[in-house]
């Protein structure tokens, strides 16, 4: 990767989406949404792995290319960068419950790249970032409501 392309790299995020035993309902909807986000230029999918954790805690990783009938994900699979290493599988699987299956998705936020590049060119340095859980927003609003009721 050249210095120029590094300068233009958007933030890279990951999620581990767990599917407890008996609670998966794959209709292809997730794949369609992922492809749509990619096609729109919102994100670039960097890596995908499927992890399974046995009852004894042992973990098995499956490459997307080893999944039969990928459907719309076929076009994404061809572009994967295989960023994750073997040790990442162990670290990511630490969050999983025994007996569950999880999808790991790594993506670049293309939508944020121009702003991030502009911030860097302006001398800015990223010193913190994160995600506010919806539950935290709910809790804050409910606390507001409670105080309002108590103050009434």
């Amino acid at each position: 990767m050249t210095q120029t392309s590094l300068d233009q790299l958007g933030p890279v995020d990951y999620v581990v989406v767990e599917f407890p035993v008996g609670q998966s309902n794959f209709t292809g909807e997730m794949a369609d949404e992922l492809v749509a986000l990619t096609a729109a230029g919102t994100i670039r999918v960097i890596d995908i792995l499927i992890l399974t954790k046995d009852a004894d805690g042992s973990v098995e990783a499956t490459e997307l290319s080893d999944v039969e009938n990928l459907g719309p994900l076929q076009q994404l699979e061809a572009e994967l960068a295989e960023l994750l290493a073997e040790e990442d599988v162990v670290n990511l699987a630490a969050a999983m419950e025994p007996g569950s299956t999880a999808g790991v998705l790594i993506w670049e936020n293309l939508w944020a790249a121009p702003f991030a590049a502009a911030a860097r060119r302006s001398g800015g340095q990223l010193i913190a970032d994160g995600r506010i859980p919806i539950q935290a927003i709910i809790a804050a609003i409910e606390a507001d409501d409670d105080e309002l009721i108590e103050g009434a």
Partner: protein
Amino acid sequence: MPLRPARVGRVGVIGHPVAKTAVVAAAVTPGPSPVAKTAVVAAAVTPGRRRRRI
């Protein structure tokens, strides 16, 4: 199925064991129905709306 050889022996990018996020735990705790919570959040993030000052 085994990982591709290219993934083996490389330095990882995650760096540490990942803990299950608290978001997941909170999502399954008893409380108002998910539909009601969704409405609350939607109202909270509506453009132009500011949190009340108590």
